[in-house]
């Protein structure tokens, strides 16, 4: 009942916005020519302001990302004797189709001493029996399987952390696959004793379809680019679930993962920044993940991400009006809120408003120039970011439909998710269906 009321309330707010826009446009159409000319000018100015914000955001991200890229590997690669042992935590709930690939990638890691703790979170499928076959020594890693009643990902991660012993903890998803060098690359960032966590580089594994290729481009341009820019100032605001290396001391200081949000990774990162730890990005620490292969699953994933991030921010409401004394935390939270909620809502509204104005006032040419400029910008950004990551240039042409289709589509979903969170609508952890795109042999 509460859920239905929330959906109705969300739809009502959207309807009010649309109706208000239409009423405004109808009123404008009946206005005298002088007023109409003024309104068209107003729309032009709005377009330019929107474009300016977008340009500034893009260029700031590209510039800081470039600086971050230029100074990477400043410490050089650590030698085997300097590599402290790492505990790897793999939380798994109904991951029978994909967990074997994840565990096989762990057995192939190039790292001297590892402990792998697989936490079965009360799975209802064969996850536990598949994982149990891996118990024991594989390569340089000791595999242990722990099982518990279903309690959510954050609780499973905390169980794994409590059951592990090494001074560094690597958290990943059960559908992730690591490159052999991932841990070595991430560990080199801990030369700085004030670094509490290293965010790695997540890439889409199951490419080939338009929807997964668009996500592959989005991970590079939309997610890794901001992370690379944030890494330059050591204030990454989300250590992603599939690839995050933590100093145990930092994790224990902040009390591990909280179980009251659906974005436990964002929440933990904010806690670490608040505790004064640096959170950095290492683009060569790569994890491959399985992206949703249909639109409904994609909506489900982004809906959860947006609401989870908002839940993390809501826990720190007071922060927004107090930038000092904790400026890095304030900056991280503001950036997170802007990227997750404010920008998507602004983007949807601007597109809708400009499209309607173009239709009704005959200002289509303005809209076209705006589209050409943005698409050119996206193409350049895609080319730069794809090149920085030494990825396949075949992803660049997808930038042509990236903003005006894919990002707009996702931003509509984020807008609804933000409205539902605003109305405190209940939600559950609905799992994205796994497809298992690679075969594993061991």
């Amino acid at each position, binding site marked *: 009942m509460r859920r239905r009321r929330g959906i109705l309330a969300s739809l009502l707010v959207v309807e009010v916005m649309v109706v208000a826009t239409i009423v405004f446009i109808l009123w404008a159409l009946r206005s005298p020519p002088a007023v109409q000319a003024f309104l068209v000018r107003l729309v032009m100015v709005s377009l330019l302001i929107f474009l300016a914000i977008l340009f500034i955001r893009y260029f700031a991200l590209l510039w800081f990302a470039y600086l971050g890229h230029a100074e990477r590997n400043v410490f050089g690669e650590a030698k085997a004797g300097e590599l402290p042992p790492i505990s790897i935590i793999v939380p798994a709930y109904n991951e029978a189709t994909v967990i074997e690939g994840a565990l096989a990638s762990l057995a192939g890691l190039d790292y001297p001493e590892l402990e792998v703790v697989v936490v079965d979170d009360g799975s209802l499928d064969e996850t536990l029996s598949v994982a149990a076959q891996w118990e024991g020594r594989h390569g340089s890693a000791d595999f242990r399987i722990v099982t518990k009643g*279903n*309690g959510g990902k954050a609780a499973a991660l905390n169980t794994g952390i409590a059951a592990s012993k090494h001074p560094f903890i690597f958290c990943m998803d059960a559908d992730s696959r690591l490159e052999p060098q991932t841990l070595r690359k991430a560990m080199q960032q801990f030369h700085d004793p004030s670094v509490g966590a290293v965010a790695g580089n997540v890439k889409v594994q199951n490419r080939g379809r338009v929807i997964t290729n668009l996500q592959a481009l989005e991970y590079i341009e939309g997610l890794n680019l901001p992370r690379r820019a944030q890494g330059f100032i050591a204030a990454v605001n989300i250590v992603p679930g599939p690839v995050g290396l933590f100093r145990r001391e930092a994790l224990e200081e902040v009390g591990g993962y909280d179980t009251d949000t659906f974005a436990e990774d964002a929440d933990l990162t904010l806690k670490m920044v608040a505790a004064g730890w640096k959170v950095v990005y290492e683009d060569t620490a790569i994890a491959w993940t399985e992206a949703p292969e249909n639109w409904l699953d994609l909506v489900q994933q982004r809906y959860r991400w947006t609401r989870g991030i908002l839940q993390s921010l809501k826990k720190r409401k007071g922060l927004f009006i107090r930038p000092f004394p904790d400026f890095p935390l304030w900056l991280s939270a503001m950036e997170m809120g802007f990227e997750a909620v404010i920008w998507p809502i602004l983007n949807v509204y601007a597109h809708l408003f400009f499209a309607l104005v173009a239709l009704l006032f005959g200002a289509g*040419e303005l*809209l076209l120039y705006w*589209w050409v400029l943005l698409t050119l910008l996206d193409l350049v950004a895609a080319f730069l970011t794809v090149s920085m990551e030494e990825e396949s240039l075949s992803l660049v042409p997808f930038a042509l439909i990236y903003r005006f289709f894919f990002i*707009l589509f996702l931003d509509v979903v984020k807008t609804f998710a933000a409205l539902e969170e605003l109305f405190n609508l209940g939600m559950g952890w609905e799992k994205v269906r796994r497809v298992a795109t690679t075969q594993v042999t061991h």
Partner: protein
Amino acid sequence: MNVVDLLITIVVVTILVTIVLAVITYIAYKLRLARQPPEDPELEGDLRYFVRFLPPEVGQGQDAHATEA
């Protein structure tokens, strides 16, 4: 219709269709969610491979023993 008008039409239609598609997909996602059977609180936390052990309640039958002084 010249090329510019054609491009304008494509851009406007793309924007509007994308927004409509996104709203429809969001509603479809919500309907899929609503059709899922509600979670049974009795089953919450159940494990497939283990049987949960529930100790007998004190005071029920002869299994409950009083501590001898």
